[in-house]
């Protein structure tokens, strides 16, 4: 007599197929255990945006009646397992379905498990993951985050690893035996079955105590009601920009007070202000109006606006002047220009370390060319 729920938190479009594979496979496997289940994506997340956090769910019950009971609430408010397939979302979720930042473990139930695909350590992840008042478990699948696009799926078995880890973390949900049988039946692929088994065997979890983790209060938003909302479907326009940070010279565009992009990106640009030739290209070609123009004509990427697309890096004509660096390296959204002006040597040392480290990073953000995923998978297996 039980109903169990899993949420898969993923980057829209990039990981849609991945998430779908996981939740569907859970339901298929549950059938092997004689249970019944349902899998669905959250409607409010669609149409999905490339990179914007989204969720899919699998709910499994012993009987159809129990399943119906649990589905009386469409979106699960408590889940046994949260599977986060991009560790950068440990900083929290700002979906396009709500305002404010939702901690990654918000709906993980007391004693439940948060599974994260990551190369980071648990301690490093807990610097980002918001604290909870109840204990839960953290389980890490040590692998590179898998991104692909709408049409071509990067079949690197991340889905299989997540399933194996999930069976370990919550055997009440689906037994490993049922999972292995079901994966064999659904995919007919021995290598995938082996991936599930391996992830199950290697799966470990670490208890997280109440209060452990990121202590900052996630920003929230109070929704007005019909009496205070403006009539005629009107909202006030964005504010006009000012001089750099409100001062003389340069320029800072107006920034949204209700929607921050802090959790939308998995990378951010790191800028070498000393080699910048002020060509304007990063600023001009940025779809997100990210760059504040400093009084001395440099471009400071403002993290209230950046969604981490990497166009600025791609268009910059100076080698290593702009480098996209993974979000796990950052614990705040402060200005790089401020850091540089305060201590140029210190900044440059920090930057150089990050840039060098990034060069060995294997993380990719989708389709590069036909056959590219096969090359990436082969390379990661060699490594």
């Amino acid at each position, binding site marked *: 007599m039980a109903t169990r729920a899993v949420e898969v938190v993923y980057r*829209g*479009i990039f990981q849609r197929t991945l998430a779908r594979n996981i939740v569907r496979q859970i339901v298929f496997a549950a059938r092997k255990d004689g249970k019944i289940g349902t899998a669905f994506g959250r409607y409010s997340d*669609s*149409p*999905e*945006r*490339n*990179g*914007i956090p989204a969720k899919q769910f699998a709910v499994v019950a012993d009987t159809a009646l129990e399943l119906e009971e649990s589905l009386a609430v469409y979106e699960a408010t408590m889940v046994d397992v949260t599977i986060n397939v991009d560790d950068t979302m440990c900083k929290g979720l700002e979906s*396009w379905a709500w*305002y404010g930042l939702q901690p990654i473990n918000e709906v993980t139930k007391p004693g439940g498990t948060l599974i994260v695909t990551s190369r980071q350590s648990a301690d490093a992840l807990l610097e980002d993951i918001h604290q909870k008042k109840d204990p839960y478990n953290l389980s890490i699948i040590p692998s590179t985050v898998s991104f692909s*696009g*709408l*049409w*071509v799926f990067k079949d690197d078995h991340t889905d299989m690893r997540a399933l194996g880890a999930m069976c370990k973390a919550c055997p009440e949900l689906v037994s490993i035996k049922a999972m292995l049988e079901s994966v064999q039946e659904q995919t007919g692929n021995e290598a995938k079955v082996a991936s599930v088994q391996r992830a199950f065997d290697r799966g470990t979890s670490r208890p997280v105590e109440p209060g452990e983790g990121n202590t900052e209060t996630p920003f929230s938003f109070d*929704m007005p009601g019909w009496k205070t909302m403006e009539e005629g479907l009107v*909202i006030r*326009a*964005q*504010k*006009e*920009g000012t001089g750099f940070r409100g001062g003389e010279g*340069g*320029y800072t*565009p*107006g*920034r*949204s007070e*209700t*929607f*921050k992009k802090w959790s*939308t*990106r998995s990378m951010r640009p790191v800028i070498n202000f000393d080699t910048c030739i002020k*060509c*304007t*290209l990063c600023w*001009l*070609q*940025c*779809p*997100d*109006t990210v760059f504040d*123009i400093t009084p001395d004509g440099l471009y400071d990427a403002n993290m*209230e*606006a950046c*969604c981490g*697309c*990497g*166009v600025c*890096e*791609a*268009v910059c004509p100076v080698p290593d002047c702009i480098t*996209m660096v993974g979000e796990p390296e950052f614990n705040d959204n402060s200005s790089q220009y401020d850091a540089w002006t305060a201590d140029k040597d210190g900044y440059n040392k920090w930057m150089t370390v990050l840039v060098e480290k990034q060069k060995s990073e294997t993380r*990719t*953000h*989708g*389709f*590069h*060319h*036909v056959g590219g995923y096969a090359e990436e998978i082969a390379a990661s297996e060699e490594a």
Partner: protein
Amino acid sequence: MATVQDLPQITGVKNIPVEEFYNSGHRTCQGCESALVMRLMIKAAGQRTIVLGSTGCMYVANTTYYSTPWVVPWMHTQLGSAGSAATGTAAGLASMMRKGKMTQEPINVIAFCGDGGGVDMGLSAISAALQHDEYNLLIICYDNESYANTDIQASGSTPWGANTTFSPTGKDIRIMNTKQKKNMAPMIATGHPNMRFVATACASYGLDFNNKVRRALTIGGPTFIHCIDPCPKGWDYDPKYSHELGMLAIETGLWIQYEITDGELILNGPSRAIAKGIRKRKPVEEYLMRQGRFAHFLPEDIKFFQDKVEETWEKWWIPGLIPITPGQDD
């Protein structure tokens, strides 16, 4: 005819205005080139502008209730109504200013639509709007080659063979979308003889686009710009390549950059160099193989695609524009 604003041509990227009128607050995809079109469009137009946006990504992803990226006044219009929105806004302003109900001043009116709203559903209303010589208005079609907002369904602007959720490649049918992309800007230019300015553009060439917007807003009467917008979601590529794919579309000769002013055609940038023989077109394969939507292509499909590009450049009366050959008697 109402007077126009003083919006001089911008000489060089360093002179592009710093002021932004499309800021954070939108929820578009990473690397969204259409968002860049919005930003550059309103940067060129300035604060005394009203923007009307028809349904599509640049509505739904841009303006989700309680946040907006727009500094200027902005209003939604229905999917097929970019033309009507521009006409109604311009007519309302003109009438009230003429009758002394509103202070006289030139206010730019820009309506935008995606390819679904422009090339498909809104074509009739756009055509009607472009007949109104008495109003200054600009219609911009941001073309990401599918109904990208609703999850990538084929439109009349989707290229031959592209994977979409309405034209998936399957076991039996490899190429579901057998339609050729509509030839929108020339259709507009040839169909509305009084129009003074029609152009194609690509946000990868930001300065060129800025200046086209300014020419469109200052020449007087209704004008039209058609932009090609690489779409990381629907085209399936790493978002950092948005800029590069825009350039590749032009360098392969697939998209041709031009402007038609008072009936006179000028090719711009790489398209001009290609036409003059200064620059060779890159093979379309370089463009196609970078996008997941064409990953199912066999060599014969790539050849078919390339052949169509050749035909456009070699056989059309005006390369890239007019697919008509004068009869032998001429």
